[in-house]
C-alpha cells in the first residue's frame, strides 16, 4: 500500500488550512476580520453582496440607514430583538461582532444602491400609496411618510422601507401588531394595530415597487 499520496494530501490540507486568511475569512469570532470581508463572505449569502436580498425571506439592506442597521445589529447581539426570524438567523451570527465591525457593516450596506425587487399590482399599489402618504385618518393612523420619509428612504433609526421585499415588510408589520418581540418598535405597534391584513399587504406592495 502506497500511503504517500494520502499523507501528502492530508498534510497539504492541514498546512493550507492552517493559516489565518483575513482577506477571505468567514470567522465570526475574530475581531480582526474586516467588516467588508464579513459582508462578502457571510452576510451576502442571504442579503446579497450589494445588499439587495434575492429572497423575500431576508430583508434588503442596500441603502438602509446606517444608524438603524447599527441599532438592529446591537439588538440582535444583545438578544433584545425576539422575533423568530431574528433569533433563528441573527442572534448567533452577531453574538461576537465588535462595535467596530458592526459600524463597518452598517457603513458597507448603507453605501449600496437599493433596487426594487419587483412591481406591484396597480390597484394594490394605489391603496398602499394612500396609506403611506396620508395614513388612515379614520383609524387615526399617521402617514408612514412622516417618519419613514417622503421617498421611503428613512432617517437615522427610522428605517428605509422603499424597495424592501413586500413579504418581509408584511411579516414585520404582523410582528409589531401581534407581539412585543421588537421592543424598539413600540411606536410601530400602535400604528400596526390599526391596520387590517389587507392594508398591510397594500402598503407592503407599494413600498416594494415604490413607483414614485
Amino acid at each position, binding site marked *: *500500500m502506497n500511503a504517500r499520496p*494520502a499523507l501528502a494530501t492530508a498534510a497539504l490540507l*492541514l498546512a*493550507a488550512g492552517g493559516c489565518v486568511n483575513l482577506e477571505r475569512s468567514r470567522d*465570526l469570532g475574530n475581531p480582526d476580520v474586516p467588516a467588508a470581508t464579513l459582508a462578502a463572505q457571510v452576510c451576502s449569502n442571504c442579503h446579497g453582496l450589494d445588499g439587495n436580498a434575492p429572497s423575500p425571506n431576508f430583508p434588503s439592506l442596500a441603502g438602509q440607514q446606517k444608524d438603524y442597521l447599527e441599532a438592529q445589529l446591537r439588538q440582535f447581539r444583545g438578544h433584545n430583538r425576539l422575533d423568530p426570524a431574528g433569533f433563528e438567523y441573527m442572534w448567533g451570527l452577531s453574538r461576537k461582532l465588535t462595535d467596530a465591525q458592526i459600524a463597518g457593516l452598517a457603513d458597507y450596506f448603507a453605501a449600496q444602491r437599493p433596487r426594487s425587487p419587483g412591481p406591484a399590482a396597480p390597484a394594490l399599489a394605489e391603496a398602499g400609496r394612500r396609506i403611506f402618504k396620508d395614513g388612515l385618518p379614520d383609524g387615526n393612523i399617521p402617514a408612514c411618510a412622516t417618519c419613514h420619509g417622503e421617498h421611503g428612504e428613512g432617517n437615522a433609526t427610522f428605517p428605509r422601507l422603499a424597495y424592501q421585499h413586500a413579504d418581509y415588510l408584511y411579516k414585520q408589520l404582523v410582528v409589531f401588531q401581534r407581539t412585543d418581540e421588537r421592543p424598539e418598535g413600540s411606536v410601530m405597534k400602535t400604528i400596526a394595530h390599526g391596520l387590517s391584513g389587507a392594508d398591510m399587504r397594500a402598503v407592503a406592495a407599494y413600498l416594494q415597487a415604490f413607483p414614485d
Partner: protein
Amino acid sequence: MERGTASAYSWVRPGTPRFFFHLAAWLIAAASLFSGEAQALPLFARQTGQNCVACHAGGQFPALTPYGRIFKLTGYTIGVRNPIPLSVMIQAGMTKVANKTNGSLVDPNGSGGNGAMPNDNYPRDGLFTVSQASLFAGGKITDNLGLFAQWTLDPYSQQNGQGKWVSHTASDQFDLRYADRLINPGRDLIVGVSLNNNIGTTDVWNTFNNPFQMVPSPIGPASLQANVFTGPQYSPMLTQGNLNAGLNAYAFWNNTVYAEVGLYRNANGIYSIMSQGVSSDNTTTLKGYNPYWRLALNHDWGANSAMIGLHGLNARVYSDPTNASSPLIRNDDVGIDGQFQHILDPHTFSAQFSYTRERQRYDDALWNPNNPAYTGSYANSSNTIDLLKLNATYIYLAKYGASLSYVSSQGSKDAILYAANPITGSANNRPGTRVWIPEVFWTPIQYVRIGFQYYKYTQFMGGSTAYDGVSSRSAKDNDLTFLYLWAAY
C-alpha cells in the same frame, strides 16, 4: 449492505459489560454537550448560532437551503469555532411488514413443516427498536478548513451464531474540506477540495445517493426497503454506506454552475480512519482509483431555487470483497437529477428527482461457463439497472410535514442473479421493483422528529403476485409501515 464477519474490537453484544462501556461513552459525550452551552442545538447550529431552518429546508435534515449549500461548499467554516465540536443523534422506530408468513426462507409455503419459525425472516418486526445512534464531530477548524464526521452505533447490526444481536460501531460519514471563496461584484467563485468516504457525501443537493425519506426503514431484509441495493455488482453510486476514500475537487461559479470531480479508492491503509470499525472484508471493494463526476446548473430567484444536474461514476469493483485478485465488475453509471425548492416562511415546498442508469460488465470468469475459473455468478456478461426516484414534500412552520415518494428500479433479465428464491428472488428473473412511500411527520422542537411512513409496493422483483418463483408471495405482502423517532443534540 450486509456487514461481514465480526472483528474482535468492533462488535458488541447488547447487555454485555462492553456494551455498557460503549453506552456510557456515548452518554458522557452527550452530557458534556449539555454543559457546554445553554442553547440546545447541534454542532453546526452551535457554530453559527443559528436555528436548523437557516441551513435545512423547513428545518428538516438533510435537505439544504441555498444558504445551507453555501455553508457546506465553503467548508463548514462560517461562524465561531466551537469549543465542543460534537453532536449526537438517535433513531428509533418500529417496522411492520404486511405479511410475514407467506414465503418463509425456510418454508416457502409458511406451513412451518420443518419447525423453523417464519418469523426469522423479519427479525424485530413490530418491536420498538433503536436502529442507530450517531456521534458527530467537526465544524470549523480554520478559516478554510472544516470537517463533518459521523460515527454510528447500530445496536442490531447482526445476529451471532446463537441468534443474539450484536451491536456495531463504525465510521459513517467523513468529509474534510478545504475551501476558499473569491467574491466581488464581478464574480463569485467557490473552490474547494474534499477528502471524504462516500460517493454523494460531498453533494449539496442530496439527490442521487440519498433515499428521499430522511429516516430509512431500519430493520428487515434489506431488499424489502426501497432502493437499497445489496451485492457486489452494484456501484457505490447506488449502494449506501459504502466506505471508500475519495479526493474531490469542486467549483461553484456565480451560484450558477457547479462542477466536481473525484477519485475513489478503498478506504484502507492510511485512509482507514474513514472506515474505522468496518471490517476489512467490506473495504476491499474498489480496484485502483475510480472517477466520479458531477455537473449542476443552479438558479435562485425570489423564494425559489432550482437545480438540474448530471452525475456519473466509472468503477471497478471486486466480485469478492475479501479478495483483491477476484474477478472484476465494471460499473458505468450516469444519471440526471434535479430539485425545486420554494421557501417562504411559513411554507417550504420541495420536489426532487433522480434517474441513474448503471451498466454492469462482468469479467469472463463470472459468467462464462467455458472459463476454467467459472464462478456461476451471472447468466449474462453484462446487466443494466435503472433507478428512478421522485419526491415532493411540503412543510408548514418547519413543524408539520407530508411527503410522497416513488421509487422504481428496473433492470435486465438474468436467470442466475435474479433466480427464483423465497422472498428475495424472482419468478421472471427480473429485479423490477416499484414502491410508493407516503409520509407524515411532526417536528415539535427543532431537534426531535416523529414520523410515519408507508411503503406500498406495486411490483417486487419483477412481479406483483407469486413474484419470487417459489411461493405465492405477492408484492403487497412486502408493504411496510414504519413509525420513527429521530432526535439530535
